[in-house]
């Protein structure tokens, strides 16, 4: 099938491409031409008019929980991929805190198989330690061979410095980074950020220093071993500053932030809404200010959703007993545009770096190319589309989002990858002549 994407702005910040109002011709899901097309080329071709929209390398969310295997009632690889496509993503990296954990080649292969026919590329992040217990490192060579792209005990930090050291040393042979959920377990017995709000609400609290301590530890260990550390969902001012200083010293550290950590503060917890319960918890305005600064100066490399589906039954409980996490794949683009681009914190090109290019670089995944003959891997964004979040329309199996009914500006309108296109709730097969 041939299609033309007409009147579209093409932006590829990595390859310094920025063309206004052009056309892109795809044949069999492969880029056939970018630029003005003559009459012969547009015969028997399905046209899509995308005036006012931008075409960018397919977005990539490097931190999602797909819940399969184990909690298929909350999400499956397929529903998670549908949610990703609806949110504007053509690739995701999924975290290993499944049941069983992603700590064997079989589980990696199972997840990849589940996603094999989907538009969205799924790259498993395997457990750093067996069963995520923090005792013995996982079979990293075998996991990488099966398709794992990084290692993490996400949900918790790697328990001890000695296991962290081995994980760095071993994973480094395969150039795979360690992704750390930075939280000192001994300080982590809480349900929200420690501060005046936790005092007022009477909730057990998680101090920001619990994150800072593990970020410090990991940076020092990365320096010592030469390993690569990626700080997941960074949330504190001090952690941002630590990463900035480490980067200056040339230590191999990268970081991601979630939209909720640059959008909401712990003031949101006031009504004990379990949809604002997550780990790391929502922090304070001064942390948000530091995160924005970190996004601007490149200290924070990526934006990731930490998409964490939970069933209604589990979330509908007492705040301190409710599970942590919110879904985010279908709001991340809208929140990033609304809170960052439209508030003039970062430009569109910087946003695309953080939502598409940088996460792939960190995980050693090839960056989609905008050249003739390349597989089309695109996201088509409408930066000015005003829409209201409606969780009942989400493709995710779960509905745990604090952003329901929120007005956002900016949305993905279509994605193309693996010879498939998702637009207006429909899947189109682009393969064949």
């Amino acid at each position: 099938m041939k299609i033309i994407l007409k009147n579209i702005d093409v932006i590829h910040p990595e390859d310094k491409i920025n063309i206004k109002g052009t056309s892109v011709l795809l044949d069999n899901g492969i880029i056939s031409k970018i630029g003005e097309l003559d009459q012969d080329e547009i015969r028997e071709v399905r046209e899509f008019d995308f005036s006012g929209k931008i075409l960018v390398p397919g977005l990539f969310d490097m931190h999602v929980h797909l819940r399969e295997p184990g909690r298929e009632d909350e999400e499956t690889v397929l529903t998670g991929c549908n949610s990703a496509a609806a949110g504007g993503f053509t690739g995701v990296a999924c975290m290993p805190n499944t049941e069983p954990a992603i700590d064997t080649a079989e589980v990696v292969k199972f997840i990849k198989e589940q996603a094999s026919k989907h538009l969205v590329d799924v790259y498993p992040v395997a457990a750093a330690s067996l069963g995520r217990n923090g005792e013995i490192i996982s079979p990293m060579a075998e996991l990488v061979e099966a398709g794992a792209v990084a290692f993490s005990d996400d949900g918790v930090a790697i328990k001890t410095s000695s296991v962290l050291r081995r994980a760095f040393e071993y994973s480094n042979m395969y150039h795979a980074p360690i992704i750390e959920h930075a939280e000192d377990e001994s300080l982590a017995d809480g349900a929200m950020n420690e501060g005046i709000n936790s005092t007022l609400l009477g909730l057990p609290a998680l101090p920001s220093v619990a994150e800072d301590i593990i970020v410090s530890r990991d940076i020092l260990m990365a320096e010592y071993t030469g390993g690569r550390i990626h700080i997941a969902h960074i949330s504190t001012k001090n952690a941002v500053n630590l990463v900035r200083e480490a980067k200056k010293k040339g230590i191999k550290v990268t970081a991601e932030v979630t939209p909720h950590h640059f959008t909401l503060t712990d003031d949101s917890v006031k009504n004990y809404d379990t949809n604002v319960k997550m780990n790391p918890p929502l922090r304070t305005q001064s942390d948000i200010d530091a995160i924005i600064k970190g996004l601007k100066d490149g200290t924070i490399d990526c934006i990731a959703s930490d998409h964490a589906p939970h069933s209604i039954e589990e979330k509908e409980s007492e705040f301190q007993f409710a599970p942590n996490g919110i879904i985010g794949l279908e709001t991340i683009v809208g929140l990033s545009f609304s809170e960052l681009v439209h508030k003039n914190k970062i430009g569109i090109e910087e946003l695309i770096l953080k939502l598409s290019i940088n996460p792939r670089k960190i995980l050693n995944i090839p960056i989609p190319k905008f050249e003739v003959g390349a597989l089309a891997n695109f996201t088509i964004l409408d930066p000015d589309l005003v829409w209201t979040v409606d969780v009942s329309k989400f493709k995710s199996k779960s509905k745990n989002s604090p952003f329901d009914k929120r007005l956002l500006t900016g949305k993905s309108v279509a994605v193309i990858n693996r010879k498939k296109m998702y637009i207006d709730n429909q899947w189109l097969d682009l393969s064949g002549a």
Partner: protein
Amino acid sequence: MALSSRHLLGLQGVPKEDIQTILDTANTFREILERPIKKVPTLQGKTVVNLFYESSTRTRISFELAEKRLSADAINFSISGSSVSKGETFKDTMKNIEAMKVDMVVVRHSAAGTPLYLTKICNSNIINAGDGTHEHPTQALLDLYSIRQKVGRLEGLKVCIVGDIAHSRVALSNIFGLKTMGVKVSVCGPSTMIPRDIKNLGVDVIYDIDEAIQENDVLNVLRIQLERKAREYFPSIREYAKYFGITQERLDRNGKDVLILHPGPINRGVELSSEVADGSNQIILYQVTNGVAIRMAVLYLLGTLN
């Protein structure tokens, strides 16, 4: 005369007039408690459920007596542990109870925020009988009432709350209530038991118990939890008693007729020496009696609102 809310979830944000109304109403009920027949028909036909997800014999008995003396039908529902472990969600439990047509729910729960959650899922009047380390408004109200009765006023007094402030719902409710009533509030205890941000509540922090005695008109002494987990916050009971325990010798040395409150149950020889616990400064059992009157006042004011 009526309160501005149909629930009592805490004292944060409760206006002065409401607190005044509750305390004044308690006065009326206090008189009834001294009569040979301690029962009035005020809440006849109303059903009150005492929903206790955490054991608390004295608070439950106090509420139950208050309900019975107002002629309400009192039902006790006690469950230990969280709803999660029970197999039925908290919401389902609550919906089931309400389907039996109840009017008011008195709730005690280990999780902060549970009373607020109840107001969202059911129509009954909700009274918080203690939620996690958040609030325990009727305890604070009875403390305020007891102080007002003994001293004759609240405005301008200096009250220090002593003990584990960080893990106390009594402390937080007292801070809100006392401050609303124009009391100068301080807290005293080991620094590990005082929230980092407490000063933002307009509360002074004292680490020296002798200074706390000298500087204040009233000490509200909290029970120290002796369970293992709570014990991580101070080195030993001996050290706590030595540096924060109130003894007669300490009271005499500081030469002051400070009024001593304690919400009970007392750890004798820890936060209060036996001599002080039975001495002339304390009003501990007076508080217990007032507790019934305060709870009658709250039940009456909320129960007759609809």
